[in-house]
């Protein structure tokens, strides 16, 4: 079957923060670039980020990138690669200042500089006390950032393909990535984008869980495409549960609320974080706070009729501060909890928020896989950045505000790397005759299948399984049965049926294709989590408890290594963590406490 082929120098899949930042590099370098997005760019989920972007600008007090590096390594529970982390924190100031130059409306200090607020896990002087490092535009930092970057792309004449869904990666016989297949949602038309560089910036997959702060569109499309094309997924057992999602609704309440002075309280109004993190208290790292909250609830100190949430209290703050620094949070409280946070505390629970793992990349943004004994062999033509990628800077637990920094720094470096690699002027590699066959077969199967599984029910089964078997606290036996269950769901997900057969804006088809991506992520998560027999960062299991030999349950002798999950045969391999930074001494292993 012959389908249209569009030739570009580069294609960027995804127009959230990472995609838009990459696009600026490519467009300003004059490369013919296509940016594909399922949604109009400013609707990408970066828009929902609230609290800020980390950079050691030191606008309100002394700060240093080296302190930021220490905090990030410690936050990662030493699973982050220290070369990538040093690279990121040292680029932070430059990337944030660039955004300001693009027009981003940061809040300001009295002397006109970018306003900065404290955030969880960000400390001065190697872990001493909280520091103001989060650069913020009220509590709408992601919105302000995404719009500023879209606007810069309008200025740079970037070519967008809006409401196009990428379907599969196209690789040739030598394994080079030479483009993607994609579907125009309005018409159902499938097209091949034939390129010399392919950058994935497809975001996360928080929708594998039942309760998530993530948007409907966060379905791990890039991870699904990579997995189907034989690329392993790295560290997928590590998922961040944000401490403060609105109970019931899941909508995010920024950690910036605690940065501005908010306090978590249990049913007896106790500030319980003092017991779990005597130094950082409510501003401890997210995994620590989420576990503390879950423990309070599990031990009967939760609030409400069912004692199933805790309270986030800012009633002691000046209402003017709330209106100025946290206006969006007040709106969210009114809309989704029916609570005015100026007068009453907000009901909150830990909610799935961010995927630390992803497509394995070097800090240059190039995708790397094991090959012939090399753990990090470059896949020519393939780049990834942002939440879909694993550089790895977040390791086992990401610090708040480091995600917006990640997408800026690695979006830019992936773009720069593509520009550099394309300078050589290499021709497009030949497109295999069967380049689109896999995608066309997936769509044909959806359109013709009878007696298959219902998309909505299959998704629900996956989400409930993930929530029950791979949540904030994990249990050896539940992980084992979770593996069986998720492999059952996978069978259903390979046999989906839809009733909508229209070619026009067929959202049933889109959701089925998304489900095929989600299940890749869910499976990688469950199997990687079951296999890791220790506790580290966000992955904490009952059969790896805190002991004198293994403080916090962390076992560095056996498990200081990255997981690589291969979807084709459900196998797992491992690769070492890079402990050597670029220019400074390694941050030595230590027991983590806040």
């Amino acid at each position: 079957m012959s389908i249209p082929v569009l030739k570009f120098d580069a294609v960027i899949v995804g127009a959230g923060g990472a995609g838009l930042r990459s696009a600026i590099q490519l467009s300003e370098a004059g490369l013919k670039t296509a940016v594909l997005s399922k949604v109009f760019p400013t609707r990408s989920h970066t828009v929902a980020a609230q609290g800020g972007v980390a950079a050691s600008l030191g606008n309100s007090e002394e700060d240093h990138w080296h302190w930021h590096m220490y905090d990030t390594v410690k936050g990662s529970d030493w699973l982050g690669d220290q070369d990538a982390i040093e690279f990121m924190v040292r680029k932070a100031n430059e990337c944030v200042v660039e955004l300001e130059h693009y027009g981003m409306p940061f809040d300001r200090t009295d002397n006109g500089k970018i306003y900065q607020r404290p955030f969880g896990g960000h400390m001065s002087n190697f872990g001493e006390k909280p520091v103001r490092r989060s650069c913020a535009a009220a509590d709408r930092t992601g919105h302000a950032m995404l719009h500023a970057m879209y606007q810069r792309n309008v200025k740079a004449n970037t070519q967008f393909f809006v409401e196009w869904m990428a379907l599969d990666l196209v690789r040739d016989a030598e394994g080079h990535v030479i483009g993607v297949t994609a579907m125009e949602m309005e018409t159902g038309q499938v097209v091949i984008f034939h390129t010399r560089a392919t950058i994935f910036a497809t975001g996360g997959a928080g929708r594998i869980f039942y309760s998530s702060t993530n948007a409907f569109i966060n379905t791990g499309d890039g991870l699904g495409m990579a997995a189907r094309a034989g690329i392993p997924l790295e560290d997928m057992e590590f998922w961040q549960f944000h401490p403060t999602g609105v109970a019931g609704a899941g909508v995010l309440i920024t950690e910036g609320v605690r940065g501005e002075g908010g306090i978590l309280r249990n049913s007896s109004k106790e500030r319980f974080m003092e017991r779990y993190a005597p130094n950082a208290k409510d501003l401890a790292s997210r995994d620590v706070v989420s576990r503390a909250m879950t423990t309070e609830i599990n031990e009967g100190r939760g609030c409400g009729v069912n004692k199933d949430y805790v309270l986030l209290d800012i009633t002691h703050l000046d209402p003017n501060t709330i209106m100025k620094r946290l206006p969006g949070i007040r709106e969210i409280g009114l809309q989704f909890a029916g609570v005015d946070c100026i007068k009453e505390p907000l009901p909150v629970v830990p909610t799935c928020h961010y995927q630390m793992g992803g497509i394995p990349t070097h800090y240059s943004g190039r995708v790397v896989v094991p090959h012939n004994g090399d753990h990090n062999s470059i896949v020519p033509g393939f780049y990834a950045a942002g939440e879909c990628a694993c550089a790895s800077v977040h390791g086992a637990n990401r610090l708040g505000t480091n995600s917006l920094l990640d997408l800026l720094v690695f979006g830019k470096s992936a773009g720069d790397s593509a520009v550099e690699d394309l300078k050589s002027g290499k021709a497009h590699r030949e497109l295999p005759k069967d380049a689109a066959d896999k995608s066309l077969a997936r769509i044909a199967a959806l359109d013709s299948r009878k007696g298959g599984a219902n998309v909505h029910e299959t998704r629900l089964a996956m989400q409930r399984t993930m929530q029950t078997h791979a949540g904030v606290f994990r249990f050896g036996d539940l992980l084992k049965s979770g593996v069986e269950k998720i492999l059952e769901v996978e069978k259903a997900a390979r046999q989906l049926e839809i009733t909508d057969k229209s070619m026009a804006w067929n959202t049933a088809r889109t959701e089925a294709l998304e489900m095929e991506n989600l299940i890749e992520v869910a499976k990688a998560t469950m199997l990687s989590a079951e296999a890791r027999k220790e506790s580290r960062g966000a992955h904490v299991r009952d059969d790896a408890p805190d002991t004198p030999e293994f403080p916090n349950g962390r076992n560095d002798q056996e498990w200081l290594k990255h997981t690589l999950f291969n979807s084709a045969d459900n196998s797992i391999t491992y690769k070492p963590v890079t402990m050597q930074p670029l220019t400074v001494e390694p941050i030595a292993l230590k027991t983590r406490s806040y």
Partner: protein
Amino acid sequence: MSKRTVQFSIYRYDPDKDEAPYMQDISVDIEPTDRKLLDALTKLKAKDDTLSYRRSCREGVCGSDAMNINGKNALACLTDIDDLKQPIVLRPLPGLPVIRDLIVDMTQFFKQYHSIKPYLINNDPPPERERLQSPEEREELNGLYECILCACCSTACPSFWWNPDKFVGPAGLLAAYRFLADTRDQATSERLDNLEDPYRLFRCHTIMNCVDVCPKGLNPTKAIGKIKDMMVGRAV
């Protein structure tokens, strides 16, 4: 809140099979935890996968799920089900071509947004650090930069309905003033020239539908008034 049944009357049109649009009467059972209209639509979509609408963040920041709800433009994710009279009448945003069901073709809307050069223009070489702006100068951007481009306002505006190709519309003009009000932007006269036209700016007749429907509580009419003041100011 309790378990309850919600009655709908929904605009349906699939160009692949329908000769003409029609209104479909349909109901759906919802759970006590379903608070917003989008929650009910999600339940409806599980029942009938052919129902088509845009949605993403479900918290009012992405601007995807704007639609005409009981005659008024709003976001489904910020509209309380229990505040709505039933049957809930859902139609696509008015004034734009319908692609399918509640999905409209937003090309014209974004064309107008792009026409105002929605990006900061400052031709000085960028300094090493951030450009300075006082908190008071920054406050001038409040009520302007928060726009989510949902198009509730422009598609509620009679002037935009009559002249979508010539009148920039409230969303585009709000964005225009966002850059005019920014102390870092240097293109004031170029921006005003770009709007000096019988249609682009001056078709606003302060009907204020835009203010009435904005889900973010913004006031495009006020911004348009300020642009008009700037026009007058420079004519003097």
